[in-house]
């Protein structure tokens, strides 16, 4: 990713454009628009899937057809027309890739622009990367090192072929096909995504990382991630997202399922920077994502997210704290600017005894944007001694934006201890003057103050992501004060 210098920032601020808004001219294999059972079957066929998978998809499609798009979120948008989207687009490759050297040079250039050098830099920083472009996994690095420890890290399409028993057992077990409209859609048409299995007692020696990118116009991206941490294992997983700038809205409806078995720990970090639309609110990605994890006994799942992109975000990474003593965490920074709308938060479902959850949510609204926190903390009658602490802070910049909090707290056990706090603040004139007086200009001062505001969350990110995240915060708030 390289070190980001002040000069880099200055250059970017000057261009005042979405940084990742380039389009890569790679020949791609793309389905005509529209969705019906034939398309679902075709996707399955394209991927050489076994019959059980095809059936699974068709079942999901039938469920989806009966569902309606949810409207409860605090977002306003023109609903996508699901028949005008192409449900499969893959970079055309002559054969299956065995090493990075065989990757299309154009594609590699794309990743360079994204700040992902799949080469030495990553090797040095010890991150294994899987790259999903327009829903198809194109390169997975470090396979060998991982294999030695029995870690499986591969495209989910491969896992369906090579590890059907794991996929069959866990896929849809946390986010069922019937869960919601977008999850059902994803279950029917997902084209790829990452699969990861950490065997019993293994601590994954490196960060695992997936980069998602939507490239082709008029396509939707429906990736599916399944991550299983077997008993006593540990894994830290990073996910990054970008898309080119386009006039029309692009749809992204992903599903992520995490399973942390007894004593396992999963740390899942996301830096989401899909194209947010331009200054007038034109274009941008619709990001409708279902992310959920299950904790068995003594297990821990920690979600960290930095959300700066997308025109519409609808996303609630959640934890089902099923096992006794399990722990769920959610750390989030969501920035909205211009005409972006985000409705994001988490659900912490306490089922086991002595379960603990922490929610730290920092929302920053600027321009004409709207930023909502929506969260559920649920303590079931059998969950003795459950603990939750939630903190939701909003920072508003200007008087055209909105910051909203919708916490739901449902407690059915007398031994629960719940604390929820929310505050709203702005960047003070006196803070800006103080920074100015020390020679820091207003733009930089805002970046500094915003980073301070989000510090508790930024601190939770793995090092190499933290730098990128800070940079993203600065870029996304650019031009937000007159």
């Amino acid at each position, binding site marked *: 990713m390289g070190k980001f*210098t*002040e000069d880099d920032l200055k250059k970017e601020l000057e261009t005042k454009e979405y940084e990742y808004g380039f389009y890569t001219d790679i020949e791609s294999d793309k389905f005509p628009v529209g969705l019906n059972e034939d398309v679902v079957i075709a996707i399955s066929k394209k991927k050489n899937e076994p019959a059980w998978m095809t059936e699974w998809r068709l079942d999901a499609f039938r469920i989806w057809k009966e569902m309606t798009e949810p409207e409860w979120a605090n977002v306003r948008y023109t609903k996508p027309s699901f028949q005008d989207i192409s449900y499969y687009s893959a970079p055309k490759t002559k054969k299956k890739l065995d090493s990075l050297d065989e990757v299309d040079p154009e594609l590699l250039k794309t990743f360079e622009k994204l700040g992902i050098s799949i080469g030495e830099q990553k090797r040095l920083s010890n991150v294994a990367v899987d790259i999903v472009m327009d829903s198809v996994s194109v390169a997975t690095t470090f396979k060998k090192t991982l294999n030695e420890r029995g870690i499986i890290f591969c495209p989910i399409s491969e896992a369906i072929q090579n590890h059907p028993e794991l996929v069959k057992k866990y896929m849809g077990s946390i986010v069922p096909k019937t869960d919601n409209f977008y999850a059902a859609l994803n279950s029917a048409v997902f084209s790829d995504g990452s699969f990861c299995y950490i065997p019993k007692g293994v601590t994954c020696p490196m960060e695992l990382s997936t980069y998602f990118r939507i490239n082709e116009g008029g396509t939707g991206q429906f990736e599916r991630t399944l991550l299983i941490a077997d008993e006593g294992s540990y894994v830290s997983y990073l996910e990054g997202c970008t898309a080119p700038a386009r006039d029309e809205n692009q749809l992204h409806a992903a599903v992520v399922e995490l399973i942390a078995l007894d004593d396992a720990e999963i740390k899942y970090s996301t830096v989401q920077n899909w194209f947010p639309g331009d200054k007038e609110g034109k274009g941008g990605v619709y990001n409708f994502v279902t992310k959920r994890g299950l904790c068995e006994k003594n297990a821990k799942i920690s979600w960290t997210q930095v959300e700066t992109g997308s025109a519409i975000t609808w996303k609630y990474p959640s934890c089902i704290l099923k096992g006794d003593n399990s722990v769920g965490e959610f750390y989030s920074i969501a920035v909205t600017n211009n005409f972006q709308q985000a409705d994001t938060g988490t659900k912490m479902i306490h089922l086991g005894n002595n379960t603990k959850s922490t929610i730290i949510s920092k929302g920053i609204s600027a321009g004409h944007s709207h930023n909502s926190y929506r969260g559920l903390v649920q303590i079931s009658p059998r969950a003795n001694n459950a603990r939750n602490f939630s903190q939701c802070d909003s920072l508003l910049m200007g008087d055209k934006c909105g910051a909203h909090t919708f916490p739901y707290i449902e407690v059915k056990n007398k031994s629960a201890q719940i604390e929820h706090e929310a505050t709203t603040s702005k960047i*003070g004139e*006196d*803070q800006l*003057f*103080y*920074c*100015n*007086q*020390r*020679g*820091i*200009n*207003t733009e*930089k001062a805002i970046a*500094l*103050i915003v*980073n*301070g*505001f*989000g*510090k*508790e969350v930024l601190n939770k990110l793995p090092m190499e992501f933290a730098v990128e995240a800070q940079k993203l915060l600065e870029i996304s708030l650019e031009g937000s004060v007159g």
Partner: protein
Amino acid sequence: MLKINNLHANINGKEILKGINLEIKAGEVHAIMGPNGSGKSTLAAVIAGKEDFEVTEGSVELNGEDLSDFAPEVRAHKGVFLSFQYPIEIPGVTVTNFIKTAINETRKAKGIAELPAKEMLQLIREKADLLEIDRKFLSRSLNEGFSGGEKKRNEIFQMAMLEPQLAILDETDSGLDIDALKVVANGVNKLKSEKNAVLLITHYQRLLDYIIPDFVHVLHNGKIVKSGGKELAYELEEKGYDWLK
């Protein structure tokens, strides 16, 4: 170095400064004293370029250059430092990160490369020792939960880091016990040189026992009504401000 000519300034239409004339040369220490509401802090804020105040007449020049059109950060880059009477809290931003940013922004403005991390760290340590600042203090959020003394010491620490040409200390003595006052004064004295100048703004003579001024000016109702040497401060302490009215 600093030249203030017939300076008039308003806030919300109310005139606070009514024609200030003042010249400070390099190597000098000036003190401005005056009763509450005489315009002392306003003068400091106007020199630093706070936008709440409207300059209606006159000018402020630094090294012959009129500052009027410059933003506060540009004035800072040119060497103006204001130690705030009430330093501002910035949650989540550490003292170290803040001062790093300030220094590198100033260097950038001057066309100098960023200070390498190692040198920066060394400088921070050196200056922190000068102000008897605990290392742990450097990783705390800026001014958040600081005691009065810690806030003021932090201001002088930043001054030491930024090495300004003109340091304006606005009521730096207020809220300090005698030990803290000595530390702060000691810091200021060590930073004094032939190349820079200090403008002390204070209500009491107390601070002037430790930082000896070359000139003392009395501000009253927006104007300098009397100027003299350091003995003027003792006279004020003895007689109060009433005899000037």
